[in-house]
């Protein structure tokens, strides 16, 4: 029997109405947290569950919450990251559109645990349906007394506001998001101070991803041991994997962390197109190092295993490429993306992303020299670990590992004076 997840309604169903959500046990966990648990208890429970952030970095959620100052400095905020923009990622959208009360309940529990006054959900500007469904759910929750000056008569006040972004990838970076929410360009801030001390409007702020918050009600309801029984020792619970690219049934699949990548591609996503063979897989969105088919067939989708195999889980966004795909073109599209999205603050990133893109255009169209391949490597190294945020590193990894792991194909472009796969490959 297929694995049953807990984050989304069954296919074809939508629980965005409060009645539907309540009919499936909704808000029982929030009531329990409100009436039976102390804030520290909730924090400890989430820490004990091993929940790690689902937005890409994989940091312990309970640990992040524990950085919030212990004294009751008010006001303090939650910034909820719904600026889902990592190419290949389309999972948070499922929650926002089809189960938004789960997110609201998670935010409410997080607010109780962290003495928070208000949450701002930063939804990417293009997500129209997500914005509308979440806004409607918040209005319903407020009317039902689940949000407002005294949540369910407890005397604890909590509000959730939705804030629309305007198309900039960098606003998914935690401090870029805060700048943007305050009405500025989304240029990341230097740290320290970290958001827990000085976040939104310089107040204590915890920033958490949509999916991360959506696990919290289930952990409160079922306990840390239940959550730890799903997944692996250090990657607990499920996640919503998004599969795109050259598979028969692309889509989202909620599965335990640690599921073999081979099973996700060949069972859940229906395998490759007839007659094709696997060439490359990006396991966690385009920021993460690409895997060769050989490695991809051996890995399991959890933090430890992927790290051991030279990549990272990221957002669990799996992009599959078969033997028709040109690896230079794939790297080129990724370089073009990062060039477009660099916020321009740091020299290494602003100049490096443009340089990488230009070099890859030349490799693809056959005007590059053999030495240009080494230059790509060097530029990438100069972009790593030197900037205010990780976009620069992501650009270097997202493109550089294509060269490192598929170098003969890059060399063939230089020797041929163009793309040897031009007849079959996707176009850019």
């Amino acid at each position, binding site marked *: 029997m297929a694995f049953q997840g807990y984050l989304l309604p069954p296919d074809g169903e939508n629980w965005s109405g409060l009645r539907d959500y309540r009919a499936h046990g909704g808000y029982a966990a929030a009531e329990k947290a409100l009436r039976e648990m102390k804030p520290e208890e909730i924090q400890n429970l989430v820490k004990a569950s091993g929940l790690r952030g689902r937005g890409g970095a994989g940091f312990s959620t309970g640990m992040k919450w524990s950085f919030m100052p212990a004294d009751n400095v008010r*006001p303090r905020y939650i910034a909820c990251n719904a600026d*889902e*923009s*990592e*190419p*290949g*990622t*389309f999972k948070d*959208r499922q929650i926002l559109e089809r189960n938004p009360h789960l997110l609201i309940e998670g935010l409410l529990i997080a607010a109780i645990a962290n003495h928070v006054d208000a949450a701002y959900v930063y939804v*990417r*500007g*293009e*997500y*129209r*349906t997500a914005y509308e469904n979440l806004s409607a759910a918040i209005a319903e929750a407020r009317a039902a007394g689940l949000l407002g000056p005294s949540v369910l008569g407890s005397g604890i006040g909590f509000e959730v*506001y939705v*804030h*629309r*972004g*305007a*198309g*900039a*990838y960098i606003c998914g970076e935690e401090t870029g998001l805060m700048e*943007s*929410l*305050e*009405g*500025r*360009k*989304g240029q990341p801030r230097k740290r320290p101070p970290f958001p827990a001390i000085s976040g939104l*409007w310089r107040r204590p702020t915890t920033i958490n991803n949509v999916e991360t918050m959506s696990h919290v009600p289930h952990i409160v309801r079922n306990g840390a041991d239940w959550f730890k029984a799903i997944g692996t020792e250090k990657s607990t619970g499920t996640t919503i994997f*998004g*599969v*795109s*690219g*050259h598979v028969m049934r*692309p*889509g*989202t699949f909620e599965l335990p962390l640690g599921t073999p990548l081979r099973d996700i591609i060949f069972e859940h996503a229906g395998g490759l197109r007839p007659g094709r063979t696997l060439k490359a897989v*990006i396991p966690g969105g*385009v920021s993460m190092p690409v895997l060769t088919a050989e490695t991809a067939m051996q890995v399991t989708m959890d933090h430890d295993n992927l790290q051991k195999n030279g990549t990272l889980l990221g957002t669990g*966004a799996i*992009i599959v*490429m078969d033997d028709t*795909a040109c690896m230079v*073109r*794939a790297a080129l*599209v*990724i370089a073009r*993306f990062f060039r*477009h*999205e660099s*916020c321009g603050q740091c020299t290494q990133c602003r100049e490096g992303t443009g340089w990488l893109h230009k070099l890859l255009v030349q490799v693809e169209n056959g005007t590059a020299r053999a030495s240009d391949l080494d230059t790509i490597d060097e530029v990438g190294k100069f972009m790593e670990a030197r900037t205010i945020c990780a976009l620069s590193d992501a650009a270097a990894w997202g493109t550089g590992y294509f060269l490192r792991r598929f170098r003969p194909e890059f060399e063939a472009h230089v020797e041929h004076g163009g793309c040897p796969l031009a007849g079959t490959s*996707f*176009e*850019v």
Partner: protein
Amino acid sequence: MALSDELRARVVAEFPKYPEKRAVLLTALHWVQAERGGWIPPDTIPDLAELLEIPVIEVEEVISFYPMYSVEPVGRWHLQVCTNLPCCLAGARGLVRALEHELDICAGEVSEDGMFSLRETECLGSCGTAPVLQVNNEPYVECLTEGGLVDLIARLRARAAAADAAQTASKTGASGTLAPGAARPLNGGGS
């Protein structure tokens, strides 16, 4: 007055959500675009700055930073095709070419009648239903095919014609007033 009274009132009504007025800027710019046919005319910028109590240059900085804001007129139907990796793997480049042919414009341009503009965009977060396209700020058009494109263009032309007819009817009607929200204002576009 560059900003309508209605828009001003909506912006002011947002202030209580935030500790600072300027936090409403991104939202306000979305509303200006919606009200003014998909772009931000220069005369609205000083008004917004004054309303939010920030310098004009900071409004301009924000507009130029975010890809969803346009400082030039766009088509009545602004088509954005995702050309990031998952959509390219699913044939997005061919779709852009087909649209350019169908609309007789290049990506980045507005058609002469101001009806359509076409742009390539970065990942829209719909990779499981690639290739994907967004019209204005409407819900996505997913799993797009070249045949589907032709239908889409025809549907959009028909919607525009229907909205114009409704507007004309209300203009010539007994009250002589414009039905609110009958149609998006048409922008001059290309010429």
